[in-house]
């Protein structure tokens, strides 16, 4: 649109000013508080860029719209991020303590609880599922599902997902303390980790891909790209590619991912009552994820001789490795000689797989119930 010089100053609305302030806040949180800076900073800057009146960055020929179309609309960027994440994950702690996989399942409870809560607030099932998946504590899965079911909500969902992931050290400890006694927090883990062969580490990503693909075909691309990245890491003959995936690919895609998502952060789409609901529901998802993991561990302890420290259950969310570190620190705070890091990491890695499976299940189930 031809606006002449200073046209933007005349055309600006108060909503656009608010969105620029939102963008500035995201940049502040990224720079000053170090909250997920790789995503929140590009999103913050993109939000400012997208809300300049008559901005050439968005619209049919805008570069941000172009990036959105080539990378988000067709899910390419989140899937490429999954290759990078797969190359970064070491599954050996999980293979050493496979029982801790189950905590990954239990700690997805917040997703499904939030899906139900969102429908009570007036969201339709697809929107509710996209909001619930914030509880996956896994940015790319949230983006992937939201883009399929509710692309209009992608902006607030991404902001909520990445903000709460950064806030895991603040969100989880009070919930864990509320649900556990000191005696439970002092439990020492008595599991003996097994050793894992290199062949097992190579076979694992292939088998998981085939297995997940058969059970929930909708999860095939999500889990497949994650496991592809992991296979590159573990095969031992593609070290250069593994390093490239962990560094260059992760950096480049993250760089454009954030600014592409900001295309959806225009004032008319973002500044609504629904955004506030999404931010609130995202927090509920994280709280109930944590509670689900802890309560599942407590339930297991009723039947087990060798008790599990229930704090480990909270590490079943996908926020890796932040959640494992939080649990480890909480354990040390209670007893300076109780080291929970290895077990918490196993549960945390299990959570990474479970969150992707949760995304796949939601993608399979929701269309069936929308018929």
């Amino acid at each position, binding site marked *: 649109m031809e606006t002449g010089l200073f046209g933007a100053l005349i055309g600006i609305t108060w909503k656009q000013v608010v969105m620029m302030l939102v963008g500035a806040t995201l940049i502040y949180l990224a720079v000053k508080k170090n909250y997920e800076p790789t995503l929140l900073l590009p999103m913050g800057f993109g939000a400012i860029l997208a809300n300049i009146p008559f901005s050439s960055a968005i619209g049919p020929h805008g570069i941000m719209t172009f990036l959105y179309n080539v990378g988000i609309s067709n899910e390419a960027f989140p899937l490429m991020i999954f290759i990078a994440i797969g190359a970064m994950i070491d599954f050996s702690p*999980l*293979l050493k303590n*496979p*029982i801790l*996989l*189950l905590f*990954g*399942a*239990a700690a*997805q*409870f917040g*997703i*499904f*609880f939030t*899906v*139900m809560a*969102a*429908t*009570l607030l007036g969201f*339709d*099932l697809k929107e*509710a*599922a996209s909001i619930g998946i914030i509880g996956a504590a896994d940015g790319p899965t949230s983006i992937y599902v939201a883009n399929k079911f509710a692309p209009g909500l992608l902006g607030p969902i991404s902001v909520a997902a990445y903000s709460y992931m950064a806030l895991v050290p603040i969100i989880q400890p009070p919930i864990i303390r509320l649900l556990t006694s000191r005696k439970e927090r002092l439990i020492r883990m008595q599991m003996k980790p*097994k*050793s*894992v*062969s290199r*062949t*097992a580490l190579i*076979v*694992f990503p292939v*088998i*998981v891909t085939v*297995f*997940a693909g058969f*059970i*929930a075909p909708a999860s095939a691309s999500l889990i497949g790209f994650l496991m592809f990245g992991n296979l590159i890491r573990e095969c031992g003959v593609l070290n250069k590619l593994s390093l490239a995936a962990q560094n260059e690919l992760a950096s480049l895609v993250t760089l454009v991912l954030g600014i592409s998502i900001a295309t959806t952060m225009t004032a008319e789409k973002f500044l609504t009552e629904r955004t506030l609901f999404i931010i609130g529901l995202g927090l509920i998802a994280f709280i109930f994820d944590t509670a689900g993991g802890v309560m599942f561990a407590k339930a297991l302890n009723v039947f087990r001789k060798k008790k599990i420290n229930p704090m480990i259950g909270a590490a079943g969310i996908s926020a890796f490795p932040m959640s494992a570190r939080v649990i480890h620190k909480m354990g040390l705070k209670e007893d300076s000689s109780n080291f929970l890091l290895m077990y918490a990491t196993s549960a945390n890695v*299990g959570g990474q*797989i*479970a969150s992707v*499976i*949760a995304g796949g*299940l*939601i993608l399979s*189930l*929701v269309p069936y*119930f*929308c018929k």
Partner: protein
Amino acid sequence: MNTVFYSAFNVAAQGMTGIFIFMALLYALILLIDKLFPQKAEPKK
């Protein structure tokens, strides 16, 4: 309570069940992988 909520409830029930079944099967699969490809003891020098 509306029909959307009941659909969400069904998604939640089937979703949670699905995840637990998947993870339990994966657990069994890991045990199988461990049996098929055990860590060999390091040769003595």
